[in-house]
């Protein structure tokens, strides 16, 4: 029982992860570690490895772009930014999310 519950929860998180990434980058551009920190602080990811394939995929879909920025300590960092297409997608996801929440609330009434 516990296993299936865990499974459902991780599936839910996984489905929302791309939405989360776009939301974080909507506030400000960030490099991977910052995105990871934020996702971890709200318990959206357990291991970091899951994030990298998503970032690259979203970049290749044209939702994100990145630029290199010099860092005071260490090599240049890859800063991810939201593109216009990404912003558009985020708006659609926001709508879809609100719809979902509403649906569930209606069902529970």
């Amino acid at each position, binding site marked *: 029982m516990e296993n299936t519950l865990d499974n459902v929860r*991780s599936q839910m998180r*996984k489905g929302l992860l791309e939405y989360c990434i776009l939301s974080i980058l909507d506030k400000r551009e960030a490099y*991977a*570690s910052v995105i*990871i920190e934020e996702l971890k602080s709200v318990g959206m*990811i*357990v*291991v*970091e*490895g*899951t994030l*990298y*394939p998503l*970032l*690259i*995929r979203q*970049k*290749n879909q044209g939702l994100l772009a990145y630029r290199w920025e010099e860092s005071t*300590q*260490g*090599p*240049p960092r*890859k800063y991810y930014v939201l593109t216009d297409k990404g912003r558009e997608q985020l708006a659609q996801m926001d709508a879809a999310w609100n719809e979902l929440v509403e649906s569930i609330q209606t069902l529970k009434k």
Partner: protein
Amino acid sequence: MKKVLNISLGNRTFTLEEDAYARLSEYLKHFRTRLAGTDGVPNAQNAEVMEDLEARIAELFLQEVGTEGRVVRLDLVERVTRQLGMPDGTPEDADGANGSAGASTSTFTGTVPKRLYRDYDNRRIGGVCAGLAVYLDIDVVVMRVLMLVALLFGTVGFWIYVICWIALPNAVTPAQKCDMYGYPITAENLARFAKSQYK
């Protein structure tokens, strides 16, 4: 004392102990395999993912060892790989690890000449018999019985043992253990011994 290797990771140089290096290569290999297995991501994309991943590993190493040339040890690699996990969020050794371990035992055994060491892990006294047994590919028990018989026939056996004890190096590092068993020194083989040492 351990051998170290210099590697470049995310445009930085790091010094890794041998077993830490073996573990890290193994991890990266598992990650890459798993990446290829998930949702059909094209290959060019995978290369980018690996690049980002390596940059992150470099960052985490840097936080721990600082810039003053400290060495990356196995426990740090273990910690970092646990934190990073696999691309699909499942445990690393769920299936990919088993597959590659099976492959390595079949392909990477007995292709280079063995070297004679004392096998301290399986020692009774000084590991001489255990080492000889590995070298001659016979059972340790047979080797020990032979040695006891030699002892019964005067002191020759005793002196052989003492000389071997003094003359033979002890197989301590994963690389020496590979040598002892005649395995080529590959990341997988090193990792195999590194793990047994770590536990």
